[in-house]
């Protein structure tokens, strides 16, 4: 269906087609594969997290979708336009990229930087837009400071304001909170939340897993090839069997007899510390009360029964650990 969108026409604005659709996209630099065979779609208004270790190909993916680099294989549509050189200007009109490094003109003031970009995007009412962008990133009072005098975090915010100027349909943020202190990072998070409410599609690359978990509707984990894609919660469930952890004051006399055959409990094992047991379960909400009753009936002193929680970090480490280098050295 996407292939029917011809090179020079887009789906009319506001149509529900995906904001980004990527099929078998690959990019290599000579022999080095930056990313390979990416296939995914991002819906309009979605906040999409793109996670991966250093060198996974995140920045190269952003640059490729942003028409700065030509893919070596595969196809994509960005903001409704086929990713081909003839559409590059139309695509760039509809997207904005906040690159890894802010890349501000350090000898110019904040406003002068933004004026340049407002003109490059041919923004109507540049004065108003600049003021609004500066308010959005809390920089209105620093607007006449020379960028070279700003701290790293403030520069990052100027870069963010610059990306907001043109009211983009798709906003690419390449590690927007890298190097920011927790307060500044939270401000960026709030800003992203605000943009989501306005319906902006956001493609967010990050190393911060808690950031992805908090902000993103879906995440993809990349290590040259896509390892997985889905909602953070779904990924956890896919990857890790559900389990509950039981802790008792004293070790149980016969845990095997107690846990085997309980409803919704598939298996059990002793955890690291004595008096601690992990039960693999099909449904924690059935297994936990059943196990509690069995433990009480056996006279055990129960300290806690808790559903084991796997963070996105566990998912990430599990997937990245599988074969960190294998795909990167493919010829």
């Amino acid at each position, binding site marked *: 269906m996407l292939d029917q969108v011809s090179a020079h026409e887009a789906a009319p604005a506001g149509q529900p087609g995906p904001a980004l659709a990527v099929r078998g996209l690959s990019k290599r630099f000579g022999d080095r594969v930056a990313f390979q065979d990416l296939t995914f779609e991002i819906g309009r208004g979605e906040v999409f997290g793109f996670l991966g270790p250093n060198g996974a190909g995140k920045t190269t993916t952003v640059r490729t979708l942003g028409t*700065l680099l030509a893919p070596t294989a595969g196809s994509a549509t960005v903001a409704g336009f086929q990713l081909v050189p003839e559409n590059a200007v139309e695509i760039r009109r509809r997207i904005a990229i906040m690159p890894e490094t802010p890349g501000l003109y350090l000898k110019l003031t904040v406003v002068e930087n933004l004026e340049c970009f407002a*003109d*490059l*995007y*041919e923004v109507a009412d540049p004065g108003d837009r600049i003021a609004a962008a500066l308010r959005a990133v809390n920089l209105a009072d620093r607007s006449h400071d020379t960028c070279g005098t700003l701290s790293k975090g403030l520069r990052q915010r100027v870069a963010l304001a610059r990306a907001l100027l043109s009211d983009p349909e798709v906003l690419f943020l390449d590690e927007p909170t890298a190097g920011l202190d927790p307060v500044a990072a939270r401000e960026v998070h709030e800003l992203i939340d605000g943009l989501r409410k306005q319906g902006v599609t956001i493609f967010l690359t990050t190393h911060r897993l808690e950031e992805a978990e908090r902000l993103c509707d879906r995440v993809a984990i990349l290590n040259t090839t896509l390892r997985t894609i889905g909602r953070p919660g779904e990924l956890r469930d896919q990857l890790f069997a559900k389990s509950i952890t039981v802790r008792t004051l004293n070790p149980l006399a016969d845990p095997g007899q107690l846990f085997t055959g309980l409803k919704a409990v598939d298996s059990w094992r002793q955890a690291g510390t004595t008096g601690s047991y992990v039960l693999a379960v099909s449904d924690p909400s059935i297994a936990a009360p059943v196990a509690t009753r069995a433990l009480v009936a056996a006279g055990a002193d129960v300290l806690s029964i808790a559903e084991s929680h796997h963070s996105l970090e566990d998912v990430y480490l599990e997937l990245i650990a599988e074969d960190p280098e294998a795909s990167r050295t493919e010829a």
Partner: protein
Amino acid sequence: MSKRRIWAILRKEVREYRRNRSVIYGMAILPLVFAIQPLVAVLRLSTEASGGLAHEHVLLYMLGIPTLVPVFVAAYSVAGERQQGTLEPALTTPVRGDEFLIGKALAALLPSLVIAYLVFAVFVGIVEVKAAPNVAASVMQPMDLLAQLLFTPLLACWTVWVAIAISTRSNDVRVAQQLGVLASLPPVFVTVMIALNVIQPTPELAIGCGALLIVLDVFGWRLVSGLFDRERLISGSH
């Protein structure tokens, strides 16, 4: 092509150069070098010595100014942005390669023309007022004045394109500036030869040189436009 985007680049460049001492000094010192030596020479001549000037074309020395002054800015234009990491954000905007380059070229060309004509006007003014009467008359040969006016933009334009071409292929600003100076020496050499009357200036020669420069300027523009490759500019720094 969008005038507003060209203007955005031009204004940004001029704002940056105004605050960049090395650019200002470079653009200021060079014209002095080219103007002071002939000026001193002319002012020291007595009326009797003016005969020797009839075979020299002192004014043409000053064509070195529009030929060399744009190098500093033009050679910096792309390589400098790349070094600073500001090229990537600019290239992710809808700006077209041609708009970007024309903005950059104008930012190098216009100040250079202003400087060249200004220094020339000051030179002419001082000679008129201070030089011995016969000397002034011999220096102000009408054809030389006309040549100065017409060749200034043609030469400056050529330098701008050559230096920008070098700049798009260079990772280092200083190297780009040095190569740019080297590349603009041949036209400087030719004008000096003409000024010294080693090459006899004739109307035919002037028309020939003018036509050649126009061709070269158009070729230079095509060359630079062809060399502008986003992918190379972004990923070449690795």
